[in-house]
């Protein structure tokens, strides 16, 4: 099973690819809504990418209040 560090790095990479932002500009503790400049609709696209990549189901209600990559990675980790 990947470590939380691995999962966080993968999430940053997926967000970087999907929103076409250099991965170096993304930090695990960033508020991804602000850093990526996205709304809830675009966040849903990121959730779909994450579910496909990690082959998990991550109900959107589990992401309520989650806005930084590290916490998102923790939620993913709990489903692996």
């Amino acid at each position, binding site marked *: 099973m990947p470590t939380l560090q691995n999962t966080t790095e993968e999430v940053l990479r997926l967000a970087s690819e999907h929103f076409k932002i250099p991965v170096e500009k993304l930090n695990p503790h960033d508020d991804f809504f602000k850093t990526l400049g996205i709304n*809830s*609709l675009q966040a*849903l696209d990121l959730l*779909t990418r994450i*579910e496909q990549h990690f082959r998990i189901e991550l*109900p959107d209600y*589990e*992401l*309520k209040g989650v806005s930084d990559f590290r916490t998102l990675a923790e939620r993913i980790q709990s489903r692996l």
Partner: protein
Amino acid sequence: MRDFRGEALSWNAKDGAIELVLDRAPCNEIGSATLAELENFTVALETLQRDCHALIISSPRSEGFCAGADLRELYHRSQALPSAERVAGVRDFVERIHRVGNAIDAAPLTTIAAVHGVTFGGGFELALLCDLIVADKMTRFCFPELRLGLIPSFGGIPRLKRDVGNGIVRDLLLTGRSINATKAQAIGLVSQVTGEGDALRVARATAAQVTKFDRDTAIAAKKFIKPIPYAELEQEVDVFCELFTRPTVEAGLRKFVESTDALPYLP
């Protein structure tokens, strides 16, 4: 009318397939304009279905297939009416959309929804009218209505129960969570998952396949395997209208209308 282009949608019939295209910004929210054009479509369908085998419903909107009912219009129209008349107004709208839905559901054609992105609420219910759902891998399906103090009202509950079963209805309705195309295929809701931007192409290939079969046999098969749950559909309208009278709904709709987010009811 074989070809039509309106404010909210268009259709055309070619090579035995009818294509109904939803195209109203931002994400095909279904309000009075869309409903009126859908009603015109069902009238045209009576003629079109005589020499066609398939119907494809799709959308070119980048945000998705359809975000559901136009809640902003619903709220403003309700507010403009005296409170005693609000339920009658909403019942009229819902009963009209049910007539459209029943006509498409029972149409003697093989019907295919080519969906992508946001397929929520009434948009999900529109897809459920179809015999087959072809979904882009980035599709998400959701019934967010409970967040507003309501239930789906375009026939989604009886049709999802008919097509997939009550367990998944309870899951999606009572949690309000959205599911992706892969999950939707795993539960039997989606027949084919495609790459990004490929749903319409795959739907067209599927339509071309079904036109090879004898039309009368396909009609007989559909009638046998796809009963319309009329009694439950009527019950759904009654439950929806009963819930609509509560103050919770007005507060939920106001919150939605005042929000500036693209999907104010998520997560």
